[in-house]
């Protein structure tokens, strides 16, 4: 395992906030983090695997919504605020829609939803919460929603 090397091309993304996403190993790390958090939830709460997947799915929804679709701008001041009106989702790949990264990030919550609803046997109320979460996330990632703020939520002053 230690002898596995990957070649990395220097990315042409000028936005330092999103450029790290183009490096190899990001997708694997994301999936591994989700899997290990499921194991942690299982061991801490001692619940059924279905409940654990639901908890993982809902906390994944909360975390990714907050950081991808709510927080705007970049965590450093070097770019002089060019991206201050854009959320992280609107910044990646320089605003180009339907790239490989975006498709991957769209598929992950949907797969999580399928796993969570399957392992809880489609029971309420988990099914309702899961469906709501995946609906919000998928709609937020549509190409038509680029820079759209519904009802002025999260718009600038």
């Amino acid at each position, binding site marked *: 395992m230690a*002898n596995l090397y990957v070649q990395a091309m220097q*990315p042409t993304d*000028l936005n330092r906030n999103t*450029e790290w996403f183009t490096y190899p190993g990001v997708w694997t*790390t994301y999936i591994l983090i989700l899997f290990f958090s499921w194991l942690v939830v299982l061991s801490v709460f001692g619940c059924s695997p279905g409940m654990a997947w639901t908890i993982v799915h809902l906390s994944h929804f909360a975390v990714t919504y907050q950081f991808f679709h709510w927080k705007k701008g970049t965590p450093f001041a070097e770019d002089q605020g060019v991206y201050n009106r854009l959320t992280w989702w609107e910044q990646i790949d320089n605003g180009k829609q339907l790239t490989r990264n975006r498709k991957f990030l769209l598929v992950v919550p949907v797969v999580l939803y399928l796993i969570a609803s399957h392992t809880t046997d489609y029971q309420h109320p988990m099914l309702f919460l899961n469906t709501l979460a995946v609906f919000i996330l998928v709609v937020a990632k549509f190409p038509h929603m680029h820079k759209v703020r519904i009802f002025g939520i999260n718009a600038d002053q």
Partner: protein
Amino acid sequence: MIKIPYLAALTTLFSYGLLFVFGQLRDFFRKIFDYWSHSKLQGYAPICLGLEDFYIRRLYLRIQDCFNRPISSPPDAWFDVVERISNDNNKTLKRTTKVSRNFPQAPAVLGLMEALQPCIPNWRSVWRIFVGKPAAVVFGMGYVTNSAILPVLIGKGGLIISDSLNHKSIINGARGSGATVRVFQHNTPYHLEKVLREQIAEGQPRTHRPWKKIIVVVEGIYSMEGELCKLPEIVAICKKSKAYVYLDEAHSVGAVGKTGRGVCELLGVDTADVDIMMGTFTKSFGSCGGYIAGSKELIKYLKYTCPAHVYATSISPPAAQQIISSIKVILGEDGSSRGAQKLARIRENCNFFRSELQKMGFEVLGDNDSPVMPIMLYNPSKIPAFSRECLKQNVAVVTVAFPATPLLLARARICISAAHTKEDLIKALEVISRVGDLIGIKYFPAEPKKQQLEETRVKFE
């Protein structure tokens, strides 16, 4: 192209994620505590918007003692680093009166920080002879040279194509000029050609009219990679597409090439093909300031329009004289062969150091003959570990992290100077090898020592 071990990539991403999560948690609790305490400033706007200073507060300040170390002796082979202590977990650092004698690995390339003599006028002619261009203009600061010249050279309706790893001064100048900026993959002439053809075919952004001017900006030696620019191919492509070439030789002038004239001499490119040559005097000449060399018309135009020349003060006399003396030493005009010796020594030193580091198994970037050697660290926790461990053993290294480098590719940057002797280098190698073993940054398999013995036996026979 960097070869990253897969496990290192995964662990680096995970560590950054963890650091980010901890930073957010601390911010969240800080917000709660601050809500309860009264703020004396009611009605004032906040200084930082939102997340702007998150990286500095939660990531950079934790390892602040590894960066910007003050020194209290002139830059030479060995110098005194002032020790600093912190009482509040690195939020603030206080200087103590103790200094420690350290062996530095920082850019003082030709070790020419000696003797300043009284000033002599008319030294720009000396500079013109050195660089090989008809005219030159000098500025007091290297960063300002780039950021004030690009807005004057090109404006709205022009196109700047810059390498993806160009220095911040170039990015600043390009942004301030108002021209459209496109980036091509680092040192890939094939991608530059693709971008050029695409942009020339498309024209200006909305009107699709032809571009007023196209400038391609590259650097001689990239300061964070130590790689030489692929200048002959890039110049050929630009000639074909009638784009101007702007070469930034901050690290390469005075250090590479047979007589120290920079990357054009090393790679055999005619200086008449490069339209604008820029460089700084801080690295090889031991002074301060930057220059632009080009055709007579260009320099005349710059002298009338560039604010860094028109409104700023000129370069100070001691700095100017230091530059003249350094050039005379490099060219050998002062009678001794110190210049040629130093150039030969820096080439020997950097090739020796680089090959030894690679044999030990470190991942070292850069081409042969380049005095800049970054050792890859990757993990954010290895940055302070490497820096502090080396400092304990009296070797001061410069570590570079985000945002000067891409997020995942943190490195320790080593610059070899002609003032270093072979014993110094061997001692530094031992320290770095020991610390590298301790930290685990020998990502490549080390070459076994037996091979070396066999080589010497063969040479003997």
